[in-house]
């Protein structure tokens, strides 16, 4: 089965691309706002359903809905953040725990509402890319690259590049990094903490919702899809090191590759067991993530 080696690598990277799309917004929210947002899967789910609604109304390719979905959800996130901020900065004890409970509540409310509004059934976003794939042959080696998965990976990498530019090269990014480092000091230096935090949360919600459109196109969407995605986002981010944004792609690809190799070469029945054993192993040796740069 050596001829499957290139395919195993490519499948692993593409699968990692899916994890990357799910985890990057989550990591941003934690890195800057110190919020572990357990509603990330539900933001993704809602984004997917808005993409589906857009497609059904206008009969256009779902990928064309990406800007619309981003704008809608960025606005929602922007408006919601002050509520979260209130929970986080209240004078009551354990604000971090309160924020966790708050996002958990959001997740439940979103899931319940989606079940009521959109129903119980599984749907699929069918784009022009859904069915295409590239085939490459070198002698006995060959490769199949599904276009929609490749598009998902390109989207994830593009978001990472844009975020990197935004955070490292712009005044807004300077403000965001300042807020992430020391909120009070940043405030004293003239950074508008409320606006910056709201913008970051909006960005995160917008990105997650766009991810939903890709997930709906690559796999499928239904109102109960959120918790699994939140769990994977959490694991990727923990593996990368909580709050260490640059580690997220590598952690995602690692998870994807482990999964792909296990499915192809070892016993598929134990793939999740293997995945989590490796994850726990890494965390035991290096509790701050695989790069030892998390918090």
């Amino acid at each position, binding site marked *: 089965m050596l001829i499957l080696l290139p395919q195993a690598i490519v499948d692993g990277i593409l699968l990692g691309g899916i994890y990357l799309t799910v985890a990057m917004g989550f990591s941003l929210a934690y890195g800057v706002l110190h919020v572990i947002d357990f509603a990330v899967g539900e933001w993704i789910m809602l984004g997917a359903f808005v993409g589906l609604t857009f497609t059904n109304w206008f009969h256009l390719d779902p990928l064309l809905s990406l800007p619309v979905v981003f704008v809608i959800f960025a606005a929602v996130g922007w408006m919601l953040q002050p509520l979260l901020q209130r929970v986080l900065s209240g004078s009551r004890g354990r604000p971090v725990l309160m924020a966790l409970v708050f996002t958990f509540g959001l997740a439940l409310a979103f899931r319940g509402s989606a079940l009521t509004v959109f129903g119980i059934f599984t749907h699929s976003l069918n784009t022009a890319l*859904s069915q295409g794939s590239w085939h490459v042959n070198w002698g006995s080696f060959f490769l199949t690259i599904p276009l929609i998965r490749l598009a998902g990976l390109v989207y994830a990498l593009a978001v990472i590049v844009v975020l990197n530019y935004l955070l490292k090269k712009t005044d807004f990014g300077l403000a965001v990094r300042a807020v992430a480092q020391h909120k009070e000091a940043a405030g004293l230096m003239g950074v508008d903490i409320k606006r910056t935090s709201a913008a970051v949360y909006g960005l995160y919600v917008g990105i997650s919702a766009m991810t939903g459109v890709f997930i709906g196109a690559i796999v499928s969407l239904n109102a109960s899809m959120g918790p*699994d995605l939140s769990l994977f986002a959490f694991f990727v981010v923990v593996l990368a090191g909580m709050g260490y944004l640059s580690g997220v792609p590598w952690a995602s690809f690692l998870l994807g590759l482990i999964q792909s190799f296990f499915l192809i070469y070892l016993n598929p029945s134990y793939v999740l067991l293997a995945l989590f054993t490796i994850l726990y192993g890494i965390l035991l040796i290096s509790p701050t993530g695989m790069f030892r740069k998390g918090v």
Partner: protein
Amino acid sequence: MHRKGWWVVAALMLALGLTLVTGPTMAADEFKIGVITSLSGDLATGGSVTKRGYDLWAKAVNAQGGIEIKGKKYPVRLIYGDDQSQPAQAASAAERLAAQEKVDAILGPYASGTTLAAAPVLEKYKIPMITGSAESPLIWKQKFRYTFGTIPPVNFTGSAAIKVLAALPQGPKTAVIYGTNDTFSKATAEAFQSTAEQVGIKVLRFNILPPKQDMTPLMSAAKVLNPDLIAFGGHDEELINLVKVLTQINFTPKALIMHYGVTEPAFAQALGKNANEVLGASVWTGSLPTKGTLGWPTAKAYADAAVAEYPKDPADYTQAASSAAGLVFQAALSQLAVAPPLDEAARTKLVEVLEKIDLQTFYGHVKFATEGDYYHSNAGLTPLMVQITGGKEAVVAPADSAQAKLVYPMTPWDKR
């Protein structure tokens, strides 16, 4: 709170306690039927299909005033217990319905795993349950005295479909078979595997996977093996994802069979033209020439009634079997002729009546096996093989109920 406040609370609690104690001893003027099914969680889709089936029956029987016992009609009240798609929750729902609600009988869960968890609890309380959905052969092997089912086990229905394929002139010679790791899906995959080996189809790969696993790497590996047949045991979402993976890597086997889930309308809606030619196993469609002696007179009458109630989704075999489960209780309760509430002796007697029941319904013949590996499952039906044709399910075998000709091999994804 002031001291006086506490007294008021205590008095109220006492009053409530007294009502609870005295409540159940009063004669009821209705049958209380518990429903345990998945109303939330991963299997909520299928769970609500069963709920629709049970609701339709209750509505129909109550429209006639209820079940007649000794000249008086007793309406039916359904009391729901959500099992949240988890076996442990199914057991506690059963406990609650039995101990607190004191139901007379129970209509059972959507999934096999939850049924297996609820059944022992109902043995303890001696409450008869009919499931209109669960299909794992494991349930019947346990020989639960109080548990019955209207759908034959999956090894019976699934194996029939593989045999039809094997009998084709250019039939499949090789297969890869996968199943998800839950009670029903695993049983389906195992049924596919053992039948394939029996009829001489070589099984190249057989694996049970964790739920919702991304199938791309597996299917890439399958593509190299180039099997004639891909058989998969799973639930709706996983089946949709599998077809999407196969189209993404552009691999079309000669036949793709997936048992339950392809008959759910959501399957064809989500996949569009790529749903066509996928095979499934079933026991009922709206076009079967059945004659009902109780409730709906024909399969078509039921299908029409179902669409009138739920216009968006036509009834599938699980919904029909769920409504039929209600009809079976209705027939058995009339024969038993004991007014509600049923005490333990009456409920045990009800089991004896159920074992002897021989009922023709819109869903087909219901007669429960009373011995062997299929103990208390419905032995009255003939398995059907269905194929999605033009976005709808059509029976392709056996020949006497076929609505369409079996398309084999499948049209490649990129030529549709």
